[in-house]
Every structure is written in structure tokens, then in C-alpha cells.
């Protein structure tokens, strides 16, 4: 199975608005996710434009799906869904 690509925005806006604590998500991955995801820190994903600022920090899954107001819990929950979905199909 392809690993799920997770890009964490560490651009300055996202960093200030909470990405700092997302940066060590790697360490918090539960066993069932450990070798199924590929986590990368990114510079500004270009999503923090003026009107969307309130959505930072942003995380991107598999190049397409965007999550705003990301938190460790939200990212882990979404990863679990993605992994389950992939296993079922």
C-alpha cells in the first residue's frame, strides 16, 4: 500500500498559529499508523491568504486534501480513516 503523504505547513503563519506542536506528530503516531504515513514539514503551502488566515495551521494529505485548523488529534483521526478506507478497498 502506498504511504499516505502528510504535509505539515511550517510556514511562519501556520507556525505561529499552532503548527509548532504539529511538528513532533511523528513521535505521537500509534503503532497501527507508524509505517503507513510519510510526514513532511513544508514551507508556506500558500493557503494562508488574507481571508483564510483563521484556518491556519494547514495540513495537506496526498497532495489534494486540505485540513484547516489542524491539531494532532484531528490529523490522527483523519489518518485512521484514510488507513481504514484503504484497507477496505
Amino acid at each position: 500500500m502506498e504511504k499516505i503523504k502528510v504535509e505539515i505547513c511550517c510556514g511562519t503563519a501556520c507556525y505561529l498559529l499552532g503548527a509548532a506542536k504539529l511538528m513532533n506528530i511523528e513521535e505521537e503516531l500509534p503503532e497501527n499508523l507508524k509505517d503507513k504515513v510519510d510526514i513532511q514539514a513544508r514551507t508556506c503551502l500558500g493557503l494562508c491568504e488574507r481571508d483564510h488566515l483563521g484556518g491556519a495551521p494547514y495540513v495537506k494529505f496526498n497532495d489534494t486534501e486540505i485540513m484547516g485548523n489542524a491539531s494532532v488529534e484531528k490529523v490522527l483521526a483523519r489518518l485512521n480513516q484514510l488507513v481504514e478506507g484503504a484497507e477496505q478497498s
Partner: protein
Amino acid sequence: MINGATYIRRELLIRLVRAFDDGVLREEIDQIPIRLRPKDSDASRCCIYHDRAVLKYRLMALLGISAEEETDEAKTLSEYLDEIIGGEPREISEDSEFERKTAPLSVCAPACSGCPDARVVSTSNCRGCFARPCVYSCPKNAITVTNGRSQIDSSKCVKCGKCISACPYNAIVKTTVPCEEACPVGAIRKNERGVAEIDFSKCIFCGKCFMSCPFGAVMERSQIVSVLSAMKRGEKLVAMVAPAADRQFPGTVEQLLAACAKAGFSDVIEVALGAEKTTEHETAEFLERMEQDSKTFMTTSCCPAYVNLVGKHLPELIDKVSLTPSPMVYTHEMVREADPGAKTVFIGPCVAKRSEARRKGIDFVLSFEELGAILAGRKIDVLACEPHPIERPAAATARNFARSCGVTEAVLAEATAKLPGFQLAAKQINGIDRKTCAMLKLYASGKLPANFLEVMACPGGCVNGPCSLS
């Protein structure tokens, strides 16, 4: 750690920078509270109108205006902005109101929730048990059980908390007023209207109330707009980056310096270079004091909250505080020597530095948060910056100044280099609170032995300052 109060402060800061750079701040600033809390949106307080009112005060604080200073409620944010951008820097007379007028902190009354007084109360978790450990544990006979529920007589209760730990049902809790609890010197109290108020004759600007208020009612008065407009006017602004910057942002210190240069500062310098001078002079001063009196006792002087503490509360320590200027002051002098026309901007994690800067002639102070907002607004990622070329990196001991024990280690290294075998009976006060204030008195009277005492107001050192990011 980020929470709702820091989030909104930072979001506002970034919006402010972006609107400033787009040249629309004047038109948009009064609309920000409405844009952020449009009708039908969820309110964080009682209603969106209250939220909007508080947002206006937050923006005022970002413009450097304190809620206490407000005389005309109808005055708009754009009017304040005009004063700041267009006007001459306001001269403030050195009268009895000076501390209040120049204070870097302010309490925004509409944001204060007027927390109920601190007390110990029994909750509905109480099962009115037979053993009644609460009653037996209370040293003041303050607890009775009526109608199957324990009751605490607040006129007798001394809030020792013994009953809290005795109750097996966790039925007894202590309510607190977080700002009052956090203040080491009793400078913040609720006034007759039940709203927190800072007594500026006591406040040492340690920023602990600012960090602790769950309603974000204690606000820092920012100089960010003055810095942005000075940059826009093409003034030479030199960023002096505090040693505490290490690991605040992703990337290295050199990359952060590069990011500052990119953001529009005409030059950048590590304050750690000033820390080298502080080390050198402070060590020399200490050795000299030792020579004059072998039983000498000296404390550090680089923490401005501590210096304020001594000035306002611990007169017995005044002649014990080192007379050596702080790293910020030395760095400022270095910048001015190289270019007398340059304006200096200290960038750090500290509230109290704002008061020191005003006294010592440093032109502006920005917090790491405010610097971050400028970088975010200008789309500068520290990680993407090439390291700034620096003539010479500051010594590792100087870069370590911002961590607890860092100053001690630097002074010890310097002293042993001069006098091999030198012994320092050094102690540290790692964080100012009520307990360590009492300890400071004991050091002053010699009841606690030491000859060199490093004092930092923030536990762990400046790296954990009230405006730090990590």
C-alpha cells in the same frame, strides 16, 4: 503553548501587518472586529457585540494604546492609527503617572471576566460520607456537614487545601483568580467593580498575569505599527535579536537573522554579542567587589523584571545588584557606535524589556510573536532563508545567556580564565514567584549563603518568556 487568546492575538497581528503592507490598514482597521465576528457567527463571549468590542481593544493594544488610557470611546481605530503614524512620538512627562502611562501592560476591562474571589468550596460531588475526612483534616474547624453536604465557612477557611486532598470524591475544589494567583508581588487586584486592575507602583512587568489570564484581558502594548511605519519611511532600523531566539522559530539563529534582514531591517545583530560584554564587565565587577570585601554578595542585573522587583519591593538588595548594563544595552551601544543614525529594535520574549528599553534609550521593542507576524505577513519562512553571513558568531556561553544557569556559567568561565582555580558560590533563582521573593530576602540578609546569585523571572530563563513562541 498556543491557546485561544494567543491565537487571536497572533491572527490580529498578522492581519495588521498584511493590511499595512497592502496600504489598506487605515480603511480596514475599524472593520476587522466586524469581519472576524460577522452576524450569525458563533460568539466566544456573551454575544458577537461583546466580542467585537474586545477585538477593538485588542487592536488598540496592538497600536500601543492601553484601554486605561481611553478617554473618548467614540474614537475610531483609524483615528488612533493616524496619531501613531503621523504624529511625533508622544512626550510623556515624568510625573507620578509616568509608570502607568508608559506601562507595557494594560488590563482591558471589557475583556476581564471578573473571576469570583479565590475560595475553597464543596461541590455537588460531596456524598456527605460517614468518615468525613474533610471535617477532620481542617485545622480551622471551618467545615460542617448539613443536609448531607459539607459546607465550608469562608470566614474561617484559610485555603490551606488539606480538605481538598482528604476528600476521596474530589468534591472540594479551590477556585482561583488566575492573574492574582500568578502575580508574584500582589500588583493585580480586582477593583470595586470586580474588574482586574494593575497597580503600577507595584507591577514589575514580569508578564505572568498576561500569560495566565484565560480571557486574554491583560494585553501588551505593542510598537509594531511604529516599527512598520519607520521601515516604510526608509529609516535605518537595526534588529537586535535576543539570545532567547534560539529554537523559537524553525531553523537556525543565522537563518532567523537572514529572515529579519529580508523583512526590511537595514541590519541585524545578535544580542549575544552584547552578552559577551555583559559577561566580561560583570565578572570584572564581581572580582573587584570580592577584592574589596571577601564576603561580598552580588546578583545579576540582566533580567529587567528582577531589576524592577528590587526597585519596587526589595530595597535591601539595591546595592547588591550588579551595575553592569544588560546585553541589550551593550548591543544598542555597539549599533550606535557603528552608525549613530541607526534606530535599534530589540527583539525578544520579554515584557519587562519594554520598560528597560524606554529607560535606556532603545528605540523599539518587538516580541518574537510580533516579529513572527511581520515574517508571516511578508511571507518569509525562516526555514527557506539562507543563513545570514555574520562576521563572527557570538560565543556559545553568550548565546546560552537566555537559559537558567547560562549567566552563571558564562561568568564562571570568564572568572576562571582570569583566575585559575576560582571558586564561585553561585546560586540561581529560576523564576520569580512569591516563594522565591521570600528567598531573595533571605539571600539579602545572608541567611541563605551565596556570593553570586543569578536571577531570572521566568522559570527556565528568558527562553520561556511571556512572549516566547515555543
